[in-house]
């Protein structure tokens, strides 16, 4: 009952957003901001088209590799800095300041190294995703209660058994949180790279649509990306909650 009421309230907020969109449309005119209904009709027509599929696929492939790169590098750095205390103590502030840096400033360097290519966009995406994965993995390992390790020793577990049955499950929820943030930021990185300089992908589609004054297309792509990111995040958040509850 309470859940239903909350869902209803959230729907009211969604409706309020649509109303605000309509009002803003009335205020600035349809060339600047198309109304919600025509945009949604356009969305239904545009999303099944070949041009959308092509660009969405390009973004998805780039994003996949960026994600793999940031996960593998991030986990490796995180585990190393979590297990080796001195490296962690030395490296953590460096990672944190890199995390807060506007990484877009470094994109020209990536472009100079890789040229206008997919590896460049993958690298730039991974530059965003790798830091939260590394930082949260490191913290997960550091925050293991010492009593877990004592229990493992009391039970005469081998090193491998300790890793599989104690360390891995104990760190999992926090590591998954890192993977979730890494997912979000890698996606942002890939889209920024596509927006700045690329002929492929949804990011470039948005910029092209803006330059051609095809605002319906621009908003359509933005809405699709919005929904994709929101759904993926909810799924990962759901997994995270389950893992937390299990412990």
């Amino acid at each position, binding site marked *: 009952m309470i859940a239903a009421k909350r869902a209803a309230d959230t729907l009211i907020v969604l409706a309020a957003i649509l109303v605000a969109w309509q009002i803003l449309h009335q205020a600035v005119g349809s060339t600047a*901001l198309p109304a919600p209904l025509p945009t949604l009709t356009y969305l239904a027509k545009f999303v099944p088209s070949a041009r959308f599929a092509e660009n969405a696929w390009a973004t998805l492939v780039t994003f996949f590799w960026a994600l793999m790169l940031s996960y593998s590098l991030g986990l490796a750095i995180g585990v190393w800095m979590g297990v080796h205390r001195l490296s962690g103590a030395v490296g953590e502030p460096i990672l*944190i300041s890199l995390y807060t840096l506007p990484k877009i*400033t470094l994109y020209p360097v990536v472009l100079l190294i890789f040229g206008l290519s997919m590896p460049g966009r993958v690298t730039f995406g991974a530059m965003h995703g790798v830091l939260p994965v590394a930082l949260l993995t490191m913290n997960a390992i550091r925050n293991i209660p010492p009593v877990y390790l004592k229990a493992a020793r009391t039970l005469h577990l081998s090193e491998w058994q300790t890793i599989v049955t104690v360390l891995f499950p104990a760190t999992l929820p926090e590591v998954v949180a890192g993977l979730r943030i890494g997912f*979000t930021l890698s996606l*942002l990185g890939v889209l920024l790279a596509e927006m700045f300089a690329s002929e492929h992908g949804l990011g470039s589609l948005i910029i092209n649509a*803006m330059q051609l004054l095809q605002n319906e297309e621009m908003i359509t792509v933005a809405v699709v990306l919005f929904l994709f990111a929101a759904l993926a995040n909810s799924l990962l958040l759901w997994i995270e909650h389950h893992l937390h509850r299990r412990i």
Partner: protein
Amino acid sequence: MSKIGWLRLAVIVIAVGLLELACRSGLIDHRVVIPPSEMAAALVRLLISGQANDQIARTFGIVVTAVLIAVVGGFALGVVIHALPRVRHALDPFFATYYAVPIFIFYPVMIAIFGLSAVPIVLMGVATAIVAMIIATLNGLDRVPRVLDKVARLHRMGRIATALRLKLPAAAPHLFTGVKLAVSYGFIAVIASEFILAPAGLGRVISDAYTDFNNQRMYALMLLLIVVATVVNMVLHVFDQRWAERRGIGKP
């Protein structure tokens, strides 16, 4: 400085030194990365010549404007939302997913509505920073100890006096975390907007320098942004840690 601090400094110095060596020895092409010493020299020359001063002032002006709006507006909205639990529950899912969505993709929409000026950039900065401030305000107000209400009643304080003299100081550490995040998010959003598309500003100048193969200028301004961002974030981080310590001591 502690031993770990020295080690950290050594790691950074060695990393920069290796980059310098790799550039000087020709391992890294001069057209790709210029040696760090040349970046610094170019930055000093650029700052003395004053050629980029307008752009620097413009960008940091926009950042300050956006962060101020986000902090003041976020605090006000946070207070209002905190007073209305039903609204808060309805908004919770949006807050939870807000930073998971690349809101940056709406920058072109802002340009379409407001034109190519400083307005969409300020709005992107505000949009990126304000939710962190709202969430921090809600967290801070949640953690105001109930006993303070009783203290206020005992001393027959009015609502405004209670808010200003008891609740605000109690929530302050969380509010500061919000300010810290707002500064860092606002900065990133403004620079990124200028990079993608803007009439002027540091991001635009760097992206132009890239297009013109003007590596000296590009790396000089990159260095400036990196140094400013690092220093500002470090100062905020130190203050945040102090507040957190106080919060730890002041726990009920």
